[in-house]
């Protein structure tokens, strides 16, 4: 008889969803990839527990969940700095921690940043939908019944989760039992996407319809300080600031949008499209955020502020290469810590 291996959700937190790398290849049917809002922290969390293939993890937001582990597991939390305890003992972030059976993990508030990833060795084993475990909230599928976690939910882990935890922890370099008794290591992953001093600087290219805005709006977009409003979510970040006006009346045909598109609806306040955005939009696009800066934007809290810095397509490519190199270097180090 195989026992079920699972996480019991005692409190769901503010906005906790299951996410893997995302659901690609279906945008022509209106299905957007979803996936982690901060894919960099997501990859690091997985690497910390020895997962290599974008295994499903828990994305936790602003106020984290309380979880009971039915079985032993190897976990890591990476991304925003949450206040986390395991059976009342401070749990270190950005490093693997061996969690005993029946342990009680309590994540509090995010202190810096807003989103973190709780990865478990082997991954979360909810049923894939259209080849992905990512939760797609707007259409209600993927993850756990396509919705936010609730109190009483049971999240399945892979059946060999405890065995994986033991063997991976055993193979790790520089293990250390912390002064509070938790079994972890002396090394950690770097935080690559935490927001620095606000307003944070987000690089963006002029969008397809930039020239259709009036001169004041074109200037204001790159000069104003924008505030992320509380009604922002995984679909889009709504930004408060000066209203951006078009130079004249305009009705554009709906056309494809993508992650990081900044569109401006009739009220003049921009919306930056995030992981769960619609695939097609009919609002003019004033800008497109550089892909390398989307994870940092995703870490802003509601009320957080940003400024857009104009960049060119080659500059966006350079930012991407730099981020990719930093991530690749961190992932190489983590792999090496697993004795490979």
């Amino acid at each position, binding site marked *: 008889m195989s026992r079920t291996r699972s996480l019991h959700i005692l409190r769901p937190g503010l906005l906790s969803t299951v996410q893997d790398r995302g659901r690609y290849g279906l*945008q022509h049917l209106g299905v957007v990839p979803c996936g982690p809002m901060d894919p960099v922290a997501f990859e690091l969390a997985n690497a910390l527990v020895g997962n290599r293939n974008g295994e499903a993890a828990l994305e936790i937001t602003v106020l984290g969940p309380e979880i009971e582990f039915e079985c032993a597991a190897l976990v890591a939390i990476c991304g925003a700095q949450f206040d986390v305890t395991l059976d009342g003992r401070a749990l270190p972030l950005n490093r693997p921690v061996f969690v005993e059976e029946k342990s009680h993990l309590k994540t509090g508030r995010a202190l810096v940043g807003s989103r973190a990833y709780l990865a478990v060795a082997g991954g979360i084993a909810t049923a894939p939908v*259209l080849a992905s475990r990512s939760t797609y909230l707007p259409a209600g599928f993927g993850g756990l019944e396509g919705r936010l976690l609730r109190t009483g939910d049971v999240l399945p882990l892979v059946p060999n989760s405890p065995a994986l935890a033991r063997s991976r922890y055993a193979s790790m370099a520089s293990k250390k039992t912390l002064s509070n008794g938790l079994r972890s290591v002396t090394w950690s992953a770097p935080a690559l996407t935490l927001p620095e001093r606000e307003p944070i600087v987000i690089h963006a290219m002029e969008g397809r319809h930039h020239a259709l805005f009036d001169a004041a709006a074109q200037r204001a977009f790159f000069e104003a300080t924008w505030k992320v409003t509380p009604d922002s979510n995984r679909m889009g970040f709504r930004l408060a600031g000066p209203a951006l006006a078009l130079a004249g009346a305009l009705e554009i045909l709906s056309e494809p949008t993508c992650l990081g598109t900044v569109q401006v609806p009739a009220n003049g306040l921009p919306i930056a499209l995030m992981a769960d955005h619609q695939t*097609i939009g009919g609002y003019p696009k004033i800008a497109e955020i550089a892909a390398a800066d989307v994870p940092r934007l995703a870490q802003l809290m509601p009320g957080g502020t940003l400024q857009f810095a104009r960049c060119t397509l080659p500059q966006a490519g350079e930012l991407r290469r730099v981020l990719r190199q930093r991530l690749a270097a961190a992932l190489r180090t983590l792999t090496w810590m697993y004795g490979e």
Partner: protein
Amino acid sequence: MKTLRLSPLGDTAVYAEFGATLDLELNRSLQALAVALRARAVPWLRDVVPALCGIALHFDPCHPQLPDAVLEACEELLQDCFKSASKFEDSGRTVEVPVCYDEEFGLDLSDVSQRTSIAIKEIIKRHLKTQHWVLMVGFSPGQPYIGGLDPKLSVPRRATPRTRMPIGAVAIANAQTAVYPYETPGGWNVIGRTPLTVFDPARDPPSLFAPGDCVRFVAITGEEFVKLSRPPH
């Protein structure tokens, strides 16, 4: 066909615009182009999205094989595929969509009737009569933008969008028909409702509509609507 304008959508996608106005013939060749592009299985290309008068190519910005000059690479790919795409035929599929145009479902029928000065009965007749095509699928999973609406029925969007469209709402605006798969906000004029499930991830294929499909609307009664609706779970 020539590329009118190739514009980056940031550094993760490119939008190739072949025209600025809705053109059914152009749209049909875009569907064929999308099929040809997908058949290439370019490793760094994640999504190919044919739209009303252009096509978006979404790529993996971290793929090791992503060319440095990605715009040029996309242009070359588009030109090249267009040659083979011209040999493609339509999907040949016709999706029959039962619609109940009763008053309780056709929420904006009287409004459309006033704005077009066409009687409700005649609106329904005209909606049923013409040949329709799926021009694009998007916004929410499975939501079709369907062309071929009788030009006399072309009305703008409602001044105030509804915050929740009924599931299965059949709505018209700007010379097109849309069918709403989910209770999303929507500004189009609702003329009826279909009992069909527009998108179901557990079904193969999940989407009732695909770009390039022909669509035929069929009028049903309220009783037939109830009979065809899936039992509530």
